[in-house]
């Protein structure tokens, strides 16, 4: 009993017939081949699967593809524009905000929404904003730095 879904993912309209039990994350990874979004747990704790759904950071392992029907979705693959990295991506690179990189796409997407809400966050606000994303490699030190880096760059661009 498959169901038809239509989504806009990274600006491209997608239409597929999917099993109702298919999680959004597997729709992205296995149906669309967007493997940048990762799965790190089965209890909605790790945040490796974070994507933007209508601009909101959501854990794509926790909603079904059919629930996302009609939605606009951005994944890590859709973040760079015209071959130019998003300031969060450069921030993570410059500040060594990743090691194994497995948590990174989810971290970046969560940070995206954080900076949307709070353009100039304090260290505490960054840490709080990333509370739903786990990293086992970095101790978060350079992730905080990366987000601060991106915030600075984004503010500079706005002021220009």
């Amino acid at each position, binding site marked *: 009993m498959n169901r038809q879904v239509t989504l806009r993912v990274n600006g491209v309209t997608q239409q597929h017939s999917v099993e109702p039990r298919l999680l959004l994350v597997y729709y992205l990874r*296995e149906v669309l081949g967007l493997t940048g979004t990762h*799965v790190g747990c*089965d209890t909605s704790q790790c945040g490796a699967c974070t994507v933007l759904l209508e601009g909101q950071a959501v854990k794509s392992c926790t909603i079904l593809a059919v629930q996302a029907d009609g939605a606009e979705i951005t*994944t890590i693959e859709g973040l760079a524009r015209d071959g130019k990295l998003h300031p969060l991506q450069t921030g993570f690179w410059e500040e060594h905000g*990743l090691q194994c*990189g497995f948590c990174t796409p989810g971290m970046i997407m969560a940070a995206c929404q954080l900076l949307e809400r709070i353009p100039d966050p304090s260290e505490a606000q960054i840490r709080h904003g990333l509370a739903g994303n786990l990293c086992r490699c970095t101790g978060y030190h350079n992730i905080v730095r990366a987000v601060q880096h991106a915030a600075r760059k984004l503010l500079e661009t706005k002021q220009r």
Partner: protein
Amino acid sequence: MAAPAVGSRIKRREDPRLITGTGNYVEDVTPAGTLYMALARSPHAHARLRRVNVKDALQHPGVVAALTGPEVRQIVDSVPCVVDFPDLKKPKWPVLAVDRVRYVGEAVAAVVATDRAMAVDAASLVQTDYLPLTAVTDPERALRPRSTRVHAEFKDNQAWYSLTEAGDVDSAFREAHVVVKQRLVNQRLIPLAMETRGVVAQYHAASGLLTVWSTSQNPHQLKSQLAALLGLPENQVRVIAPDVGGGFGSKIDVYCEEILACIFALRLGRPVKWIEERRENFQGTIHGRDQVDYVEVAAQRDGVITGLKVKVIADVGAYWGFFSPAIATSTIGLATGCYAIPNFRGELYEVFTNKTPVDAYRGAGRPEAAYIIERAVDLVALELALDPAEVRRKNFIGGPFPYATAGGMSFDSGNYRAALDKALQSAGYQRRRSEQKRLRQRGRYQGIGLSSYIELCAIGPWEMGAVRVDAAGKVTVLTGTSPHGQGEETTFAQIVADQLQVAVEEVAVQHGDTAVVPAGIGTYGSRTTAVGGSAVLNACLLVKEKAFKIASHLLQVPEDRLTFAQGTFAVKDAPDRAVTLAKVAAQAYTGSVPGAEMGLEASAYFEAPNLVFPFGTHVAVVEVDPETGEVKLVRYVAVDDAGNIINPLTAEGQVHGGIAQGVGQALMEAAVYDESGQLVTGTLMDYAIPAAEDLPLFETAFTVTPTPRNPLGAKGIGEAGTIGATPAVVNAVMDALAPFGIRHIDMPLSPERVWRAIQESAKARPARRRGPSARRRGS
């Protein structure tokens, strides 16, 4: 001349793919026609397995094949463990259980289906009939004479015993001014790499080639093991560890799932994929630590330690993993820390229990040693009312190096005092102490904790590095190490860039594919830079040797009249007669040079002659809320000495991550089993690892004491943070709780445990209550 690349903060070359979501992890590998594997696992910690029936599972839609223990045993009789000691009890670890299950999560059957969900559904249809038996979960009880045995073929659960002795321990204790004793529990931990394990096995019948993508830290060892287990020649097995999402030791082992995926792939001629669920990861991937340690210290009144007795009871779980028997031997080997303790007795009991096997988890035996000795030193300081920093200073090994320790190690180099002094200075230790006094008067409980740890790395036996300069002068490096977050695509390029005088961007480092890299050991035990980097360096030297020959031919002067600087070979005294490395490389592939064969490449094996011993001092500052028992980590200063540092940026990253895991053990993490052997902290909902909000920014610095034991002078930094952090944090909390008369609490120092200890101390000594009420007066 351009600044040397080694020692520079160069941002990582692996990052562009990882920050754009275009990395390639095992889960991203799905060859056409892939089948999915799922396992049925034991819900019992100990049971007779009377029947396993896969008939219903096979009838489920989409199911292609299934396997059970007896059938698999015909092909592979045990999951491998490569360590052998005299008198080591070595039971077989069946790939799928046969007759008995010995821990919750042990695999009993495997099914393969055309899609992931179908495979999982089918695995739940496997019928089993268990007769539950008493489970043994406490290692000390497991050692008792009448304990239930985990392996009926052995007379008891003592898997191995060793005794290490030096000096005259009994006299030291007889003559001591004070003797301090403590039982310390080093709790079981879950390694918890954010990427779970996974494997894809593909067999190409026409060529006879088996290709295996695995989340392995050591693909070459996996290749050799799989070939041996499956009876294939090694040259018909290719293992690829693509991007791997962290390992921390848990991805060293050869696991049953890798063996099963290969058996299915060989049988079915189709690719077979298995991706571990997090729930399975908690039960089916090796665990770390799990020791009960008894420590006794003999000391003089002035704080000089004269003797140490350590009894280590290591709970190894139900079976031996790849390196398991060796893990706790490092605890004994490093139990005397960086201190000159002449009289030592170390007893090690390794014990089977009905729990998941324990193997290497970040630090692997060394964090346990650091915890024992660093807690013990603090207890001596407390007993004698001395400053813990002073007690450390009094006991540090002062050289000369190499220094033979009572634990049987040969320390390469060290300046323990310098690291301590630097850490104390950065932390403003003296100021902190007066501040602490002031705060206490106001009812605030700050604690300052030190740990002067020692670490052991550069585990052998060797590593391979190859360097090739192509005809255009670009460089390719092959390394047998298999980084999975450590960043050697960058740091090894830095080493090569300096040697061959090329830009870092012109060096491509390849790893992780046994068909690309001819030989290797892998990445674990902080060995990658010291052993793998040294192999790469030596390969560079060979390439340069050959390049000199070619340049000498091109410039028509003897080699000893040539210099090599800024990528150019030039004639001494006639610098305008010169030829670039690129030109030399082009010549190497086009024209013949007398006495030199074509090509410009070389490979080198670096044999690790002996271990190297990084060290450092960490300082943790915590504040404990006596009303709630909550511990807040306020400040963290780490001074580490890993010898020469190739890239401070990535080295700091290693320290940060290590500290986070060490803090996790001190304050939050614990793999808890109930009496019946159920893992009650079996998901991320019950097992807490540090999140961003639990940690502060870390202040890191290095001292540099190169090792003479490899040409880089580098030691290893991957595990240092984890080793240093746990005792530093626990010592800080105990320091904070000293006014309550609390001497020790076992980890993790959760609010509940701390609160209870405060309550009990308040009951036992009502006078101490003054603490909290003083705050009311003060505020």
